[in-house]
């Protein structure tokens, strides 16, 4: 009873610093959680990306008949969901968009110099080992010069994203450290503002743990509010972020930032936990540093 009333009274008396602590914590943790969820989403999206499900099959001749035969053979391989011929015009357009110099060099030449290729799509649920076998089977078909597995290309791309992950993790830790410092300031401030009450309960034999207990209640309340605030900001802002994302990566054609209930709970719990950890560790440090008779 005393502990709860002390915690509520403390928050009321320090309303402004409590609000600042909650808002500051919410801002820092929202940023940290955004980074975490982004990484989580990015990892999860690999399976949905079209590139991860496709392969480019290069054919060693421009003969239309042969190309169609290869297409028929490829369609016959078990594990291929669909396949189509990439037209010379599509190829030229691709070069024009991404490699203009090469496009210019080839434009004056005979169409036969332009390599013919197929785009093959695998089922989304196919596992990497099975796909590897399918790709190898396609490679054995006559007139197939090379099979370029999209998954392998994408893996390289994602490998470079590891550094982004490390950076994100470092940034999240840094943001938590800032929150810790904010909380430390908050609890050191309490030692001054509540000096009389601390002195009083100390004179009745209160241990440092008893001094800390109202802080712990305050920390739990503030952490829950902080976590709730983060969740509201993060998940109501999700649709806006999705819209912005689609402006840059809209060609993927997938709804970005899809989060199921499990991920939602994980993110919410993580934010409350991070806030609580910052509060509790800062409170303990403030208590140890404070001179209490």
């Amino acid at each position, binding site marked *: 009873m005393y*502990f709860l*009333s002390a915690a509520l*009274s403390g928050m009321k*008396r320090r309303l402004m610093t409590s609000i600042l602590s909650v808002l500051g914590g919410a801002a820092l943790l929202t940023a940290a959680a955004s980074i975490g969820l982004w990484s989580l989403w990015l990892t999860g999206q690999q399976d949905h990306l079209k590139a991860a499900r496709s392969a480019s099959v290069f054919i060693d001749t421009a003969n239309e008949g042969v190309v169609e035969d290869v297409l028929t053979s490829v369609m016959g391989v078990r594990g291929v969901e669909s396949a189509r011929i990439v037209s010379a015009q599509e190829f030229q357009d691709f070069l024009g968009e991404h490699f203009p110099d090469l496009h210019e060099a080839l434009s004056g030449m005979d169409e036969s110099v332009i390599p013919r290729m197929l785009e093959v799509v695998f089922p989304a649920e196919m596992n990497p080992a099975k796909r590897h076998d399918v790709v190898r089977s396609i490679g054995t078909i006559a007139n197939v010069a090379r099979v370029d597995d999209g998954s392998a290309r994408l893996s390289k791309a994602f490998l470079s994203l590891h550094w982004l992950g490390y950076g994100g993790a470092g940034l999240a830790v840094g943001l938590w450290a800032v929150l810790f410092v904010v909380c430390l300031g908050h609890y050191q401030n309490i030692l001054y503002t509540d000096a009389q009450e601390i*002195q009083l309960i100390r*004179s*009745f*034999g*209160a241990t440092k743990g*008893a001094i800390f207990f109202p802080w712990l209640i305050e920390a739990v309340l503030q952490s829950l509010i902080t976590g709730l605030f983060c969740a509201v900001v993060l998940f109501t802002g999700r649709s806006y972020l999705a819209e912005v994302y689609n402006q840059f990566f809209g060609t993927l054609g997938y709804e970005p930032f899809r989060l199921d209930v499990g991920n939602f709970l994980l993110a919410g719990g993580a934010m409350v936990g991070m806030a609580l950890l910052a509060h509790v560790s800062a409170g303990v440090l403030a208590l140890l540093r404070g001179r209490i008779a």
Partner: protein
Amino acid sequence: MMVSLKQVSKSYHPNSLVLRNVNLDLRKGEFLFVVGDSGAGKTSLLKLITGEEFATSGAVLCDGVPYRAGSSKMLKMRRRVGVVHQDYKLLKDRTVYENVAIPLFFGRAGSQVPPVSFFGRGAQKLVEDAIMAVGLSPKILDGAVKELSGGEQQRVAIARAIINFPDLLIADEPTGSLDHDHTWQVIDLFQKLNIKGMSMLVATHDRDIIRKVRKRVIHLSSGSIRVDDREGACIF
């Protein structure tokens, strides 16, 4: 509970002693008045005994154990002591009930006090008894402390100090804000508690109380004990 001061000196600033070589024994069940002019060192003496302050030199002992900051024995000793501060030290933003009940959550429940649960169950009757013992109505328990008069606040502070039935009650000017009737009501209460075995250490300016109660008196002057009258017969 026996408290002893051996050659105790206290200074807050260099070259300025508040207490000088004080020797004092307070025996179990004893009633002791501390008198002296303002600045004589009464409050400092009381703070040394409650453990709020520590001696610059010499030793303060409780049942033969010297005081040491932050020690568990020190905390246990504090739980056996009730304190009425000169400035009451009430938590102004809490109710009277919350103020009076505070020691129940930290202090030792004495043999005459049933234990109180962590959530405050069992505290209600103890709080009501304490508040009535100092002549206040239980109706004020739900009110805020800041709405009370100075005299009422002083009595709430006394109720808080005695709620746990401590072994030793230390009171610094406990009747300073009370009228004649309430002063004697409080002194009568102190005497009754003393008869039940509670040691008393009361700092006061009120000579009338000392004359009528006739208990041991020490007179502090410039930080030293000038008179230690065990019969309480001296007139200042």
